[in-house]
């Protein structure tokens, strides 16, 4: 019984780590997987939203979060042939809350809410069949506006 379990463990490890189509298919079922494309998305009242810094690493990233709750932006990624290869709905608000609380009671004493620039880290998978990503397009669901396509600055 024990030997069988160890055998199953070893087989499971080999299978998950292998590059067979079965394991690749399994990974796809768990989420879209590929190299990790990280970027810093910035919104500002004075300029169109865009990616500030972008980074592509070999580390595998499986995206299970393509549809964030309360999403207000749609990000579309394009390859060199201008084909849409990936999209993702994300949430990013333009409000900044500054607050202070009483250290003893935890009651909030002062608050200041400002509307302005904000940014967040985004991650995307870049699989081999996408043919790389070179540009992106951002659509604001709140403003009902699609901003012009921009090149990714690596």
């Amino acid at each position, binding site marked *: *019984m*024990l030997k069988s*379990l*160890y055998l199953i*463990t070893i087989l*499971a*490890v080999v299978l*998950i780590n292998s590059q067979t*189509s*079965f394991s690749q*298919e*399994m*990974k796809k*079922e*768990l*989420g879209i*997987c590929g190299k*990790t494309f*990280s*970027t*810093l998305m*910035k*919104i500002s009242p004075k300029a169109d939203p865009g990616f*500030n*810094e972008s*980074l592509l690493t070999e*580390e*595998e*990233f*499986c*995206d*299970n*979060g*393509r549809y964030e*709750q*309360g999403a207000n932006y749609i990000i579309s990624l394009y390859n060199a042939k201008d084909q849409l290869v990936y999209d993702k709905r994300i949430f*990013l*608000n333009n*409000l*900044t*809350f*500054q*607050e*202070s*609380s009483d*250290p003893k*009671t*935890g*009651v*909030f*004493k*002062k*608050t*200041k*809410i400002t509307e302005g620039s*904000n*940014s*967040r*880290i985004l*991650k995307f998978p870049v699989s081999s069949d996408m043919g790389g990503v070179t540009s992106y397009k951002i659509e604001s669901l709140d403003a009902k506006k699609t901003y012009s396509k921009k090149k990714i600055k690596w």
Partner: protein
Amino acid sequence: MKKTMRSMTFLAMSLCVLNTAHAYKLVIYTDEAVTNKSDEVAKLMKSTYPFSKYDMEVEVVRVPPTDIECESTNGIDRLVTCKNAEDIQAKAMKRGGDQAMIVKNISKYGGSSGVGGGVPVITTGTPARAMVHEFLHTLGLCDEYEYAAEEAAGYCNNPSSKPNVTFITPQSAYASDAVARNRHSGEIPWYRDILDTTPITSSFMLGTGVVDFKKPAAVNDSKEGQVLGEPTGLFQGQVCNKATPKRISWHPGGGSTIMDKTASGLGAPLEKIVDRIMASKGAHKKLVVEEPKENTEKPAVSNDKNNAGEVVVKSDPQPEVNDTSRNMFKSFFTWLKDIFQQIMNVMPK
């Protein structure tokens, strides 16, 4: 039997290590000489439900004070903001982080955060629980305490509903609870959590009740939600009471939550909401391996404890998961098909 349990545990741990789904990584930047507050924040972020059920990785990074340019803003003491939050985010991104946080070594200020983005900031003079509050802002949740008139003037002029707050001007009376549900269900973001047995009206008036801000929600640092906690409903709040004209706000829970006071917990209704947000962001749920119980214990009451020693994956049913078994079989047959195709290709040779 114990050996079998150990083997199963080993199997689960191996799979955990090899799992390709990413851990949600928080990177805390601090200029503390001794990282007491940052460590407290790290521990709190990992232990607070529902974050405790997710694979959360927290890294504390010490940097010189000059790297964190935080100060009081607009002449208002006790409010702090950091000028180089974007640089901090870029650094966190390079470390594989999903979210940057800042613990600034100043004793006299409070905390600040950007709603739905930005970098949550607290100071060493602020309770660590304030970071949970600020982080919930980055997930899109709004405050539940009453705003002063000047903030209400700006925020409440055109408020839109958020995961934990909605603004509904009620009718003077409703013929029945069903009428109120038909009228307002689309305006309540957490409507799916309100059971049929929980009314959203009381004495023909809108509202399950009024939020009792003197009743703090219990702090939950377990790995299980407060199943027996208060039911989700529609409770009248106070956030925009001082706005002109007054806007009536509504919350899912009937008690004070961490969005009202840092000392309060999330409460069962907020736990469900935050859990859904984390899942939608692709955070990966932990594989929970329960320790085998000794036979000297009395028989366990819940089904979970009767299955002690088994690998239990705690996950809520999600629409996209329903087809997993079918897809795995499909994947398996794709793999078999590939192998047969390769054999067939080789055969003529």
